[in-house]
């Protein structure tokens, strides 16, 4: 049952779900050191104990919100710490809502979720507190630009 546990967060005003197995912890986001000359969705690095976390602004990683502003949605000071292929990231979201269990398998919605969302979504999942979009973590971390390059390369 544990793999059905989900962390529910608001990203760009939408309810999204992250597998609780991916989320190591939820932290208060402290000072973020920006990293010059990196893609926009990389907000910077922050320290968690002796570890350095790469901070990803999920709204910008989706390709939503135009570059600099990023404040189209209110920001919670909490961030979800996730790890992908040995590196740890802090995900900046609108808000962390709850931890809940999934009911059923992820499914697709006729007509899709829209270009930005389809790229990072594994599908819709029903949870105890209502439906949420199940996020594909590597796709989200890769950011909008990389995905575009890769799809171009694939063509």
């Amino acid at each position: 049952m544990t793999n059905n546990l989900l962390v529910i967060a608001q990203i760009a005003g939408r309810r999204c779900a992250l597998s609780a197995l991916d989320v190591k912890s939820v932290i208060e986001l402290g000072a973020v050191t920006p990293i010059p000359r990196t893609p926009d969705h990389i907000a910077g690095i922050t320290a968690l104990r002796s570890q350095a976390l790469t901070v990803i602004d999920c709204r910008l990683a989706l390709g939503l919100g135009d570059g600099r502003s990023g404040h189209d949605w209110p920001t919670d000071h909490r961030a979800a710490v996730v790890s992908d292929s040995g590196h740890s990231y802090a995900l900046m979201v609108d808000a962390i809502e709850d931890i809940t269990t999934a009911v059923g398998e992820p499914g697709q919605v006729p007509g899709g979720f829209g270009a930005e969302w389809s790229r990072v979504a594994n599908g819709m999942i029903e949870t105890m507190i209502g439906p949420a979009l199940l996020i594909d973590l590597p796709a989200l971390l890769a950011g909008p630009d990389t995905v575009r390059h890769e799809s171009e390369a694939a063509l």
Partner: protein
Amino acid sequence: MDDLLAEFIAETREMLEASSGEIVAWEADPTDRARIDTIFRFVHTVKGNCGFFDFPRLADLSHAAEDALADCRAGRRDPDPQMVSAVLAIIDRIALMIDAIEAGQEFPEGGDELLIDALSDTHETLAEAGSSAGKQGSSPHLDEPGIARPDMADDFTADRIVPGRRADPAAAQRTIRLPVELLDRVMSGVSDMVLARNDLAHRLRQAGNQPTIDGPFERLTTILTDVRDAITRMRMQRIETLLSVLPRLIRDLSAELGKQVMVDLDGGDVELDREMIETIRDPLTHIIRNAIDHGIETPAARRASGKREIGLLTIAARQSGNTIAIVISDDGRGLDEERIAAKATATGLITAAERSAMSRDKILNLIFEPGFSTAEVVSNVSGRGVGLDVVRQNLERVGGSIKVASAPGHGTLFTMQIPLTLSIIAGLTVEAGGQRFAIPQSYVEEIVQGSSRALDLTHMGEAALVTFRGNRVPCLMLAEVLGLEPGTAALRDPTLVMLRLASGDLFALAVDGIHNHGDLVVKPLAPAVMRCGLYAGSTLLDDGQPVLLLDIANIAAAHELVSETRIRVLQPADDTAAQVTPDAPRAMLFTDFAGRRSAVRLELVQRIETAPVSAIDLSGPRPRAVIDGMILPLVGLPETPLATHRVRLLRLTDGGGEVLLAVREVEDAVMLDAALHPVPEDPLAEAVTLIDGAPVTLIDAHALFARFGALPVAASRPKCTIPTDDWARTILAPLVSAAGYEIVHSDDPDPDPTTIAIIFDEVYEVAEALGRAPSGPVIRLRDHPDAPKGCATIYRYDRDGLLAALNAASRPSAPAPATAGERA
């Protein structure tokens, strides 16, 4: 050397253990190519390692086995059971020899030749030695001293050697091997503890002083610092331990090959994981062997091509966050593109069509392909088709890489890149555009602070140049590189960090300011961040703030600051090259008291001293000065008395004698690259030369030392005895010795009559009453500040009074330097 030997033994043992499975598998199927390769690499490595040590028997055995295996690999010979047995017998013999070496015992003589003969495919040896070896080699008991010479089996049974392994525990230093992952965990745990401590410290400061907590907290801090140091040291080792053995290896190799090679090592203080040092040891040795064997020409050939007879081998290490670059360059004949291409085509590595489409760079890098070797003569030293492919394989296994660049006739340059997942480096924290960044200290040549005018900062098109030591050096604005708003201070008064790349290229990085430097624990960055090519990692400052570590090599490469040839020994005429080649003599430039600019050869200058005028003694026939308690002859003083209180002295030495040269001003170390014009009329001048267009007199060292040189004489400092209690030892003694007195034991059986005795008044009175008062001058101390007028005692904290009394007491004897001078 003991360390190296222990490592050699441990490594060989480990390889033996690892390859024992392979050996058994090979025995089952002698034609198995993969097994042959593995065993071949083992004997090859043993042979290579023997190059460090003087183990001729080990070298002969492994060389013989390697030969036979090389024949198999090349298809010149089919591995048959006899040969397998013979090779196994040799491997077993190697194991026994290693045991004997570790136990510090002499391995019994003899037997080696028969083992080696058993390898050859001539039938008479096979008939006797081969059959017995075939029988015994497969037995798991390593008792083959008996194999080859059954008649002597009783003389050196394994009994005599094997127990020695345990009998002599002092022979090898006790070490244990731990998984690196465990060390990593401990280390990150300690890092977390440090941060938790910092947090606690912060809270304690807010809460105000709490003596009951502060004490234990201080202790915790000290312990934590110690533990962190120890943990760090566990993993880290200076690359020097690897480099320090190279000069000897290079000397031996070049002697063996009839070549003359000079070695230039740089970057020995770069620290890296022990594990990484082990990983690069073999690759580095292989490349050096190759460079000496194939790269550097014989002295005659070098002379013919207009080079210096002595070849130059440069090995430089630079660390940049998660990578360490080791550059090995020689000024030999360079790689022959055509020959490599021809060889690669012949061995079927590439087709002729592919060849014509390949760039020179690509062709050169074919030398790392398995089975490639251009050596025409197989020597003891290198070249059998292993070597470079093994090098690349070893490096790639740990995520590293190797590449080669070469200019025909001028030299070859190998660049090894080794990643470090976790490392501690010395780093400099700088600020640009309001943000902090770290730079690995190993790149930093110098930090220059000054106005744009002084640095002669000029913009040529988009590029900026500064003048550093007379050279125009490209300059990057860090804020610009990072796309940040530059601080206003950076434009007017930039702080320049002069950075030297592993390739020898120098460039300046303009920053807004320098914060501090210290040890940084470098952590890897997410791939998306690494992709922008500016950063090598991240690190946390003491306050827990994350800081990005700049990837200097990459930034320089992106701005095309790495010269194309990338071989700094290539341009002997160039200024920067002249600095690294010790060709042009160097001299210390100074202005003497007559206002003349003069120079003295730099090799002679031992130190630049600044001495008080009082250290100079003019009473003797020749001026002398006392420096560090030594009396040295002094030249170059003006006729008139000195106006200053201090005088700058160049301390010159010819190896034995020393001379002090008084100068008005020391300028700089300079190259003596202009012609030297002799001046016979001035006996103390070797020549006149031009430095920066102005004439400079070069001091004739020969004449100087012939006239004035003298062996240094210890100045006899006036002796003084003090009371034996703690107060005297800790409080009085430093004062007395700082005043120039030597403290001697008061119970000296043969007291010098000039020895001054400092003694407490009450002790003195007792001694006097007993008729045992000191014979020399006496200074009596009292405990109370107040004393009747005319009292002969001095209050013990009356510093001036004490010094005056000492001075007065030592006055009766002649001034010390003069006495000593006459004695000399």
